[in-house]
C-alpha cells in the first residue's frame, strides 16, 4: 500500500482533520521537498529529502490553512523509503528553476 492509496475522498474534514481538493495548476509540476517529521516516541526529528512530481491533490489542515500536496513519481527519496508517494507541506516545496 502506498501513500497514494491513502487518498480517501469520501472522508469529511471533521473526521479526517483536513479538507481535500485538487489544483490543476499544480498537477505535473516537478519539485523538491525539504521534508521530515518528528520521530515517533522521541523528542527528536528527522529530515528527509524528496524529488518528484505533484499530482495536484492537496489537503488543507486547520483554519490557516496549512496546505499539503501529494508528490509521486519520486526520483529522490530516502534510502529504504518504501512508498510511492509522499505528502509535502506547501512551504517545504522548491519548484524546478525556483532556487
Amino acid at each position, binding site marked *: 500500500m502506498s501513500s497514494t492509496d491513502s487518498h480517501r475522498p469520501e472522508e469529511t474534514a471533521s473526521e479526517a482533520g*483536513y479538507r481535500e481538493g485538487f489544483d490543476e495548476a499544480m498537477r505535473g509540476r516537478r519539485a523538491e521537498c525539504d521534508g521530515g517529521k518528528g*520521530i*515517533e*516516541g522521541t523528542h*527528536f526529528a528527522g529530515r528527509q529529502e*524528496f524529488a518528484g512530481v505533484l499530482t495536484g491533490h492537496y489537503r488543507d*489542515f486547520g483554519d490557516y490553512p496549512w496546505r499539503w500536496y501529494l508528490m509521486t513519481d519520486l526520483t529522490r527519496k530516502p534510502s529504504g523509503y518504501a512508498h510511492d508517494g509522499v505528502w509535502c*507541506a506547501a*512551504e517545504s516545496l522548491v519548484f524546478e528553476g525556483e532556487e
Partner: protein
Amino acid sequence: MSGPLHTPLCDKLGIEYPIVAFTHCKDVAVAVINAGGFAVLGEAMHAPDHIAADIKWIRDRVNGKPFGIDLVLPSSVPEERTVEQLLAEIPQTHRDFEQMIKHKYNVPDPKEAPNLHIWGGLDQKRALAQVEVVFDERVPVFASGLGSPAFLLKRAHQLGIQVWGLVGKPRQAKKQIAAGTDVIIAQGYDAAGHTGNIGTFSIVPQVVDAARGSGVPVIAAGGVTTGRHLAAALALGADGVWTGSLWLASRESDLNLPLKERLIEAETDDTVYSDCISGYTMRTTRCPWHNEWLSPGAPEPLKPPLQMLLSANYIQGSLDYQRKDLMTEAAGQGIHYVTEMKPARQILSDLVDGALDVFDRFASA
C-alpha cells in the same frame, strides 16, 4: 547595555546576552532566562495539556521575562499505519540482529515496554493541537524545529507572537524570510539530532547574506559550546547563538546522572551521524548499538519508523537501568567542551566571558 555582545536580537527579545538555550528541561530554561539569556523549551513529544502546564510553570518563575516553545512541524508525511502493521514489516534478520546485540551486551528489558501505541501521532493534526496551546498561552516566541512555520505567521503576529524557523539549507532560509519569519536559526552539520549536511561555518554566513536588508536576525546553531564559538558566530554576521548540547550535563538538567557522565566523557568523535537509531540520519553519541549496526556485515537500518521500533527496547532498557555503557543521546560535535557539571548560570557566564575575551584580544591587538 552596549558592547560587542549586544545585538539586534537582544533588543528584539529584551535580553542581556544573545545566547539561546534549546532544552527539554524546564529547570535549565528558567535558569538561563534568569541569568540574562533566552531559552526555548522543546515540547515536540508532549500533549497539549502538558505543554500548557510547562508554560505556566516557567511563567511562574521568570518574572515576566520572555521565553519560547519549540515544536516539530512535519514537512513530509507518508501514509499512517497501525503499530501492528509496522511491526509486521520488520524482517526477521533485523529482529535477530537486535536480539544478538541484546545478548552480547546484556541489555536489560525495559521496566515497562515502550508504549508503541502512542506512536504515529506526530502528524499534522497533533502539531496543530500543540500550536494552538502556544497561541492560547500567548507564548512570546514559537520556534519551529523542522518544517516551515509560514502558514501560521499571520495568526501568530496578530497575537504578538514571534515566529522562529530553524533551517539546514540557505534556500529554506530565503523562503522563510520572504514569508515573514521573525528570526532564522541557521543550523550546521555539527549540531545534535537532525541536521542538514552543511557545516556551521558554511551555512551561517550564507543565511546572513540571505537575510541582509530584511531586518531578520540570524542565530547560529551547531557546535556552539564556548565563548570562542559565540564570538566567531557574531563575526560571521549572526546575531546570536542557539545552544543545546551545552546544557545537557548542567546541574539543572534532568538527564540521569550516568548519562550526564557519559556526555562529559564524550569527545567529538563519539558523536555519530547515522540512521541506525531511528531510520532518520541524526547525530547522537556512539554506543554499542551504533558499533554493531555500523560494523561490516550488519543489516541496513530500516526505514522510519521501523528502525525506531527496533531500537526502542534497547534505549529504554539502558535508561531504566542506568547502563552508562549502553546509553546514547543526541549531542553535537561541540560536546568536547562539555567537561564538567556546572550550574546553567555559570555555563552562560563562562560563554559570555569567553566571547568578551576574544573581542578584548582583537581590540588590544
